[in-house]
């Protein structure tokens, strides 16, 4: 401390480039690239959302209304691919880009030029994939899982495989960058066990990405060679087996689910302590629980395949392994509740979205536990119960966490406060309509309505109509979010303070709002009282 100096200009002696092209296309600045990721994710969220509106419009009542069945299948496939790879994942990468260097006291990401490349691959990948919708034969229609032999019948397979390769390369480079940054760029004194939980969650998620994205790349490469180069990896006629694809896909696919939820856990672990004005309960247990979930995610993949005809021993193993995940997940939920217990709580918009996350994600977790049971899964498999389950996990889970993070850090990004009134209007409409949208789908699934069908038995008509009404209103509600974002960024008169939230702790709140273009070029002195987890080892 004796050699510490104070200054108030944050090394911002060279600001952002004035030239638009240089600033946004050539950028190597983690904040600008983070902004690009977030704008891209938001755009994809609305494109994927428009596909969802098409799906719900067709399912509004029984019979064929608006589209041919093959186009409906393209919509369900594209909706999933766009939302998973285009909206949720890039949104988390954007948040990581913006916040990780600020949280660990690093001047930028470890590999800034690779960071630029990671981002700029994505728009090309999605233009390529979405362009297949306008090609003869249409886009992919075999579901986002791309199971052979169905997926091999698609004329657009080569385009989609190339797009998936590009997304994979982008994700892998992003993950390498995040790991290299966290392990090598932390300010002196920022020990691993003093890092914010969000940073921990991203470190573990990045390792998951490194391990599973290459496996997806391998699987889709084999699809490509089966279709165009005469190989028989998955063709029984040539000695192959389509079930092998399912094994290898879900070896990627299940950890992918956690890639989309672990950073969300990190966000909730930042927001809840801030608005409860208490340090997080059980910091080390929270970090260890994330690591446990990540490990378990590698040994549960076949629970997606119970109905395919696995040996009994395998079904029992995968059932118990899957149920085991509820233990570390329960630790996290209980710790969030314990953090709030006795806290001096206030309910600003980020906290409201986080509270909704905790309750609604837990509902998704419970329905997941039901699906983990082999005998029950034979009933639920490929029904709307599964659709309800993963939308509770991914919409009220991952998406709500992303929205919570946006409200939480938006004042730090823009230097302005958002409209709390419109934030709350956005929240209450979202939380009501999302339940109207997805909760009836549990009943539809239990009654036997299969997923991925454009028409259905009249017995399912009422719940489908309710679900569609919820869908349209949930979709419309998100336009309020756009309004809040634009108002906050360009028109808000209320300036944000540096700390923004009374209970906020951590390095990111020690820099001015908006965060200067360059921060921490000279490493900060780490003062344990400033950190959310500074005294964890005391």
């Amino acid at each position, binding site marked *: 401390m004796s050699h510490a100096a*104070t200054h108030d200009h944050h090394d911002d002696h060279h600001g952002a480039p004035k030239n638009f092209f240089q600033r946004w296309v050539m950028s190597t600045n983690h904040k600008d690239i983070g902004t690009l990721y977030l704008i891209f994710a938001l755009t994809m969220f609305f494109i994927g959302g428009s596909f969802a509106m098409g799906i719900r419009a067709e399912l509004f009542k029984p019979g064929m209304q608006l589209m041919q069945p093959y186009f409906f299948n393209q919509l369900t496939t594209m909706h999933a691919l766009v939302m998973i790879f285009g909206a949720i994942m890039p949104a988390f990468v954007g948040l990581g880009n913006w916040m990780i260097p600020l949280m660990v006291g690093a001047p930028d990401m*470890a590999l800034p030029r690779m960071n630029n490349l990671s981002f700029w691959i994505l728009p090309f990948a999605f233009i390529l994939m979405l362009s297949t919708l306008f090609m003869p034969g249409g886009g992919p229609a075999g579901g986002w899982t791309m199971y052979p032999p169905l997926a091999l019948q698609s004329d657009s397979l080569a385009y989609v495989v190339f797009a998936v390769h590009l997304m994979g390369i982008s994700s892998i480079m992003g993950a390498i960058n995040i790991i290299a940054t966290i392990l090598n760029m932390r300010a002196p004194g920022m020990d691993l066990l003093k890092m914010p939980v969000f940073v921990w969650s991203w470190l573990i998620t990045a390792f998951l990405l490194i391990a599973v994205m290459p496996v997806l790349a391998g699987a889709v490469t084999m699809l490509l060679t089966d279709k165009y180069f005469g190989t028989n990896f998955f063709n029984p006629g040539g000695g192959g087996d389509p079930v092998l694809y399912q094994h290898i896909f879900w070896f990627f696919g299940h950890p992918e689910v956690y890639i989309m939820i672990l950073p969300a856990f990190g966000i909730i672990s930042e927001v809840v302590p801030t608005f409860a004005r208490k340090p997080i309960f059980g910091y080390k247990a929270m970090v260890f629980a994330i690591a446990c979930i990540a490990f378990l995610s590698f040994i549960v993949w076949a629970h997606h395949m119970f109905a395919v005809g696995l040996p009994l021993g395998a079904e029992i193993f995968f059932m118990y392994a899957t149920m085991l995940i509820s233990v570390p997940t329960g630790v996290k939920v209980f710790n969030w509740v314990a953090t709030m217990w006795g806290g001096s709580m206030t309910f600003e918009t980020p906290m409201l979205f986080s509270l909704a996350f905790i309750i609604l994600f837990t509902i998704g977790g419970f329905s997941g536990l039901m699906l983990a049971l082999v005998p029950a899964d034979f009933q639920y498999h490929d029904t709307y119960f599964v659709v309800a389950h993963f939308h509770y996990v991914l919409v009220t889970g991952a998406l709500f966490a992303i929205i919570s993070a946006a409200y939480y850090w938006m004042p730090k990004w823009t230097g302005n406060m958002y409209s709390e009134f419109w934030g709350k209007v956005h929240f209450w409409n979202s939380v009501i309509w999302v339940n109207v949208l997805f909760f009836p789908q549990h009943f539809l699934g239990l009654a036997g309505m299969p997923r991925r069908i454009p028409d259905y038995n009249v017995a399912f008509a009422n719940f489908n109509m309710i679900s569609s009404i919820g869908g349209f209103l949930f979709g419309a509600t998100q336009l309020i979010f756009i309004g809040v974002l634009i108002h906050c960024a360009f028109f808000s008169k209320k300036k944000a303070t540096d700390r923004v939230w009374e209970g906020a702790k951590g390095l990111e709140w020690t820099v001015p709002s908006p965060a200067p273009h360059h921060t921490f070029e000279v490493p900060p002195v780490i003062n344990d009282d400033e950190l959310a987890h500074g005294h964890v080892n005391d």
Partner: protein
Amino acid sequence: MKQETTRSPVADGDDSRRRGVRRTVTVLVAIVAFFFLISFVQIVLMK
């Protein structure tokens, strides 16, 4: 807002950071290559 900084610019520790980043990237790229190849090996063995 005033914030305390160490008076040691990043450049002082650049070499060790650069070495650390290079080592990390090498290990991670090796893991990526391993998992990519293992997916093919797995399929061939299971067939």
